[in-house]
């Protein structure tokens, strides 16, 4: 009898040796005549256990990990094909608390199915949402998304239904659906995991969006740093066309939706929606002034829905199970679930999809298990490079858009980067300004030039060159950037800077005052 073994094809699993493990499994099976079939699934999102090897047994999928190529011989010898005991045996995947306690709606299939198999996708509930959407009036689809409370998962958290309704009402012969897959924030990888682990759900979500607003062409704008996601998307889009999921006769309905992937070229700013649209048009990715809103005048001047990967991938389950089902998860005005990403200096890094409402502390310690280095966690940056640095005293903040805004933080795309107590927060503040200088599109002066001046001013503060005066100057500069920038890059870079200054002032004043003569005796 053939035994099915699962080893992830996720980029992070590959980065720690999943391919080598698969080669070793295949070699050993060939040598011993063991009858195995290896499925390359997405990742379960427990990256400290990758490469994770799962074996399908009558009792369920039994996991072993982290497996190195030279563990394979002992795994076979122990009888892992029957789920037998071994030092690396973790038991049933669902019984691992980190995974079992999650509420996986958007990531329901990731790590379970073969990502590039349409049959597997259908067998696990795929295309059910699309099937329902095909029988609904466009306004009803939009209403269901509105009623679900789904907000943009890219970072800005704008209600998806309102955006869709604007595009629905816009009159035009051509409308577009654009998926923002330019996941450039450090500490985030949920888009990548989803595109590699369940790309069909994104395709399905985009088709539903097209049906909802009357758009027949979609583009996925994918960052070029994600070659594995690119492969997965290209392969599944081809399969979707071959099976009448995409193209001129969606599931036999006679309706059309075409989809294309476009690669970005290493510009962080293209994650900003209007820059992304300019880039898709074949231009430098420079920010546009709003209004006009993209929903009215977007790609090539036409009404365009532009949503993040996770937003679009959450639509199929909302269509399938209903707005109430999704809305009943969460708290306050943050409805549904958020795929959070535990990253950086954290013992159990990975993906945790939970309903809004759990606290940052639960994530860092109950899921994350504290720092990877074993030292105390001193600071956490939530929401990517434009998010505030939070001290331990703010770890009880619930995962909720409004609660984070109240502490001058940002939930953003749900990335959480932990730092231990060896971090120098003045250097982190400096890096925020440096990054802004490197990635600024150049349109707004406070961002383009202010960021470079910001680096210099922080250097002077750290060197104790007129520290008090330069600290005032830095705050003033940040105020100018916040109020004088069109988009979030210039407008939010001050948040990590000011939060570092606010919560960790001691890191800016390590250098004792220099004697006056050090400044040239002037």
């Amino acid at each position, binding site marked *: 009898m053939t035994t099915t073994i699962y080893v992830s094809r996720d980029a*992070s699993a590959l980065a720690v040796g999943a391919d080598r493990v698969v080669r070793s499994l295949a070699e050993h099976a060939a040598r011993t005549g063991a009858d195995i079939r290896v499925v390359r699934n997405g990742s379960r999102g427990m*990256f400290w256990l990758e490469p994770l090897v799962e074996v399908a047994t009558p009792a369920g999928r039994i996991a072993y990990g982290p497996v190195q190529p030279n563990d394979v011989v002992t795994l076979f010898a122990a009888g892992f094909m029957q789920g037998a005991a071994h030092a690396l045996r973790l038991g049933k995947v669902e019984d691992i608390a980190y995974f079992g306690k999650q509420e996986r709606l958007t990531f329901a299939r990731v790590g379970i199915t073969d990502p590039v198999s349409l049959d597997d996708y259908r067998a696990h509930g795929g295309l059910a949402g699309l099937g329902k959407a095909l029988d609904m009036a466009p306004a009803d689809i939009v209403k269901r998304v509105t009623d679900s409370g789904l907000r943009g998962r890219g970072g800005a958290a704008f209600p998806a239904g309102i955006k869709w309704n604007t595009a629905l009402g816009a009159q035009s012969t051509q409308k577009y659906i654009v998926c923002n897959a330019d996941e450039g924030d450090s500490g985030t990888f949920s888009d990548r995991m989803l595109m590699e682990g369940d790309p069909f759900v994104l395709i399905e979500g985009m088709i539903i969006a097209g049906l909802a607003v009357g758009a027949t062409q979609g583009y996925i704008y994918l960052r070029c740093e994600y070659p594995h996601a690119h492969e997965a998307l290209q392969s599944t889009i081809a399969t979707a066309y071959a099976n009448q999921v995409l193209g001129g006769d969606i599931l036999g309905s006679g309706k059309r939706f075409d989809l294309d992937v476009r690669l970005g070229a290493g510009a962080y700013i293209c994650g900003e929606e209007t820059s992304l649209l300019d880039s898709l048009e074949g231009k430098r990715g420079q920010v546009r002034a709003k209004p006009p809103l993209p929903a009215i005048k977007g790609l090539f001047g036409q009404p365009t829905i532009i949503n993040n990967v996770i937003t679009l991938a959450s639509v199929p389950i909302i269509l399938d199970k209903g707005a109430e089902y999704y809305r009943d998860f969460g708290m306050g005005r943050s409805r549904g679930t958020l795929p959070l990403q535990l990253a950086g200096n954290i013992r159990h890094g990975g993906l945790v999809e939970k309903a809004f409402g759990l606290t940052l502390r639960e994530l860092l310690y109950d899921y994350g298990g504290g720092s990877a280095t074993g030292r105390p966690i001193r600071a956490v940056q939530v929401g990517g490079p434009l998010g505030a640095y939070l001290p331990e005293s703010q770890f009880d903040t619930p995962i909720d858009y409004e609660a984070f805004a109240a502490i001058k933080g940002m939930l953003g795309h749900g*990335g959480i*980067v932990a730092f231990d107590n060896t971090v120098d927060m003045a250097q982190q503040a400096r890096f925020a300004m440096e990054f802004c200088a490197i990635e600024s599109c150049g349109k707004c002066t406070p961002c383009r030039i202010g960021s470079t001046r910001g680096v210099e001013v922080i250097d002077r503060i750290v060197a104790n060159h007129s520290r008090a005066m330069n600290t005032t100057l830095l705050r003033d500069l940040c105020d100018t950037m916040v109020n004088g920038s069109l988009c979030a890059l210039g407008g939010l870079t001050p948040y990590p800077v000011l939060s570092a200054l606010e919560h960790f002032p001691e890191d800016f004043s390590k250098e004792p005052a220099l004697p006056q003569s050090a400044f040239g005796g002037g």
Partner: protein
Amino acid sequence: MRKAAEQVPLKAAPHGGPALPPDQAGAVQAALDAHRDAAGALLPVLHAVQDALGYVPEAAVPVIAHDLNQSRAEVHGMLSFYHYFRTRPSGRHIVYLCRAEACQSMGARELEAQVKQRLGIDFHETTADGEFTLEPVYCLGNCACAPSVMVDKTLHGRVDAERFDALLVETAEAAK
């Protein structure tokens, strides 16, 4: 006088500068043939040229501009805006070292110094033997297995100085 020049349309002047060598001209033509009809063709065209040649030669700029009926400034502007595009050849392998926050929290600043010392070059430079070009990158999406390095299109996680040395050897051997 200068009548010939005046007749050339402003946006289509594939003149001046060195001509593309025939093999490069063929790759540029193939890129244009494959993508010219796509909406917003310039981005996929530049990707296709870089995929084929490893970089986008300066001499390709007027050819692409003429074909797509865009100005040379527009094409040049794209090349200078996007960090990924290069106008000069790289080494045989490109090492992308992540400098972003998640990697910093796991020692990327120290790794950066060690990598630069090991290769004897700074960012955007190529080793004397033409083997490696070092480029900074801001997030490879491998933030739970930091620090991250991508060599060409192969991603590596939890890289320290020792692991990096091994990667250099593995990369050179795999290419043989």
